[in-house]
């Protein structure tokens, strides 16, 4: 469980996040949605500690990331896996080396144990026989899978995914979404998925926060998001023709 309390974040004069409060639940895919530029990535980077907010608390099962010392922070980071918008695989390393990297850095496992763990994770995300290839030699969808494998290789308690299906076709997107949901339930992770894609929201959204101009504007789940009267939310949800057709259908 991650509790976010009263987070403010500015860059220079510009305040990006305004007093954000939310609780991300364990074993669930928690979703942050909102338009591009609404502050989703900045919020995620504050929560994982890549940005330092001016105010507020970020409690990882009660431990406050902002006030803790360097050493404790390092320990928490080992419990966090993150999937970046573009995958962020190290392009000088092969698929296998990428997934193995956190293990070589932070564990005392033998080469053989590491190989086994890597193979297990790559199998889990359905990447087979790509071990020796470099990220530039595999497709975008596969890169995302490898990035997921790297994010879960240390058995994290918290998983962050920043637009996991940006740049993917609809079918691959759904496969990635389902993979994230399955892994979350399997490992009882507190998963946070950032997206602006309604398909993902309807597919995996259990606990949703709608962020609007840097504020937590609305919270709910995938049922209530379809029926809410909140204007900004409905504008967002029903911005596509497909969703408008869907609304007409359920209204009847």
């Amino acid at each position, binding site marked *: 469980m991650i509790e976010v309390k009263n987070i403010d974040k500015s860059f220079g004069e510009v305040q990006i996040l305004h007093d954000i409060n939310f609780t991300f639940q364990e074993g669930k895919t928690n979703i942050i949605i909102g338009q591009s530029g609404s502050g989703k990535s900045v919020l995620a*980077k504050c929560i*994982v500690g*890549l940005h330092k907010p001016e105010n507020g608390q970020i409690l990882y099962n009660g431990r406050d990331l902002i006030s803790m010392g360097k050493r404790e922070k*390092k320990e928490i*980071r*080992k419990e*966090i896996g*993150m999937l*970046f*918008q*573009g995958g*962020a*695989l*190290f*392009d000088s390393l092969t698929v296998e080396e990428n997934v193995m*990297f*956190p293990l*070589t*850095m*932070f564990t005392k496992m033998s080469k053989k144990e590491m190989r086994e763990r890597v193979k297990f994770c790559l199998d889990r995300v359905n990447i087979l026989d790509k071990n020796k290839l470099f990220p530039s030699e595999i497709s975008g969808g596969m890169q995302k899978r490898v990035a997921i494998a790297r994010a879960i290789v240390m058995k994290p308690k918290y998983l962050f995914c920043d637009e996991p299906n940006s740049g993917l076709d609809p079918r691959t997107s759904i496969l990635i979404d389902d993979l994230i949901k399955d892994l979350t339930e399997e490992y009882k992770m507190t998963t946070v998925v950032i997206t602006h894609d309604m398909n993902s929201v309807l597919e995996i959204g259990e606990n949703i926060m709608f962020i609007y101009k840097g504020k937590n504007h609305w919270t709910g789940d995938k049922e209530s998001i379809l029926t809410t009267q909140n204007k900004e939310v409905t504008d967002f949800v029903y911005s596509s023709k497909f969703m408008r057709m869907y609304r007409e259908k359920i209204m009847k």
Partner: protein
Amino acid sequence: MLIFVVNKIIINRIEYFYHIGRYAEMLGQMFSRPEKFSVYWNKLMEEIYQLGIKSFGIVVLMSAFMGMVIVIQTATAIDSPLIPAYTVGFTTKQSIILEFSPTIISLILAGKVGSNIASELGSMRVTEQIDALEIMGVNSRNFLITPKILGAVLIFPLLIVFSMLFGFLGGWFACVSTELVTVEKYKYGIVAFNNNDMMYLTYALSKTAVFAFIMTSISAYQGYYVKGGSLEVGKASTRAVVYSSVLILLFNYLITQLVLI
């Protein structure tokens, strides 16, 4: 108008201090304790290979041709019966050891290595690879930058020694092929009058190490703090080469004034 100019100067000053401060902070962070020594050792070896061994070809090629040209130019310039022919060997040695190898080759390396480092780190920054390292709990400055600086400081002096040797060889080739000077006299000019050689060599290799530090740290700074996309990465690598070269020239002057006078 005047106020505008003054304002601009003040703002530039502030920015200037900001960069110096952040550069110093980057260097400070570089020497924190590594997470795992063996990983860093491998990384250091890889950088020595990438930055040093892979530059060997261009260094050798440049040095040999420069050696040839220096011999021909000196020989034709001092074509006088009053000056002994071995002067050509002596002059060639002096210019190669004191200036050509350590400074000119360092400038060439700044072009190659500087843009290489800035674009590598810059693209790691814009594709969030650096964030990915930080999330894992890796100190990214320490992990990415330290091995590059250390590797270059260790290997470049060795490259420069090779540059000197190949410079002399180039000169030798020019003697053989043009017969402006006999090989014996050229050799004599190089080997005799060697009282200062050790001192000059130390001076040359020390300044090479300083130049290696300048070009790698400046370029790393430019790349590491890139904001934006691939366009900015390109700009950063141009800045890396320009700033490194200018600073190398400046420090060359300062060090020379300090040591040789």
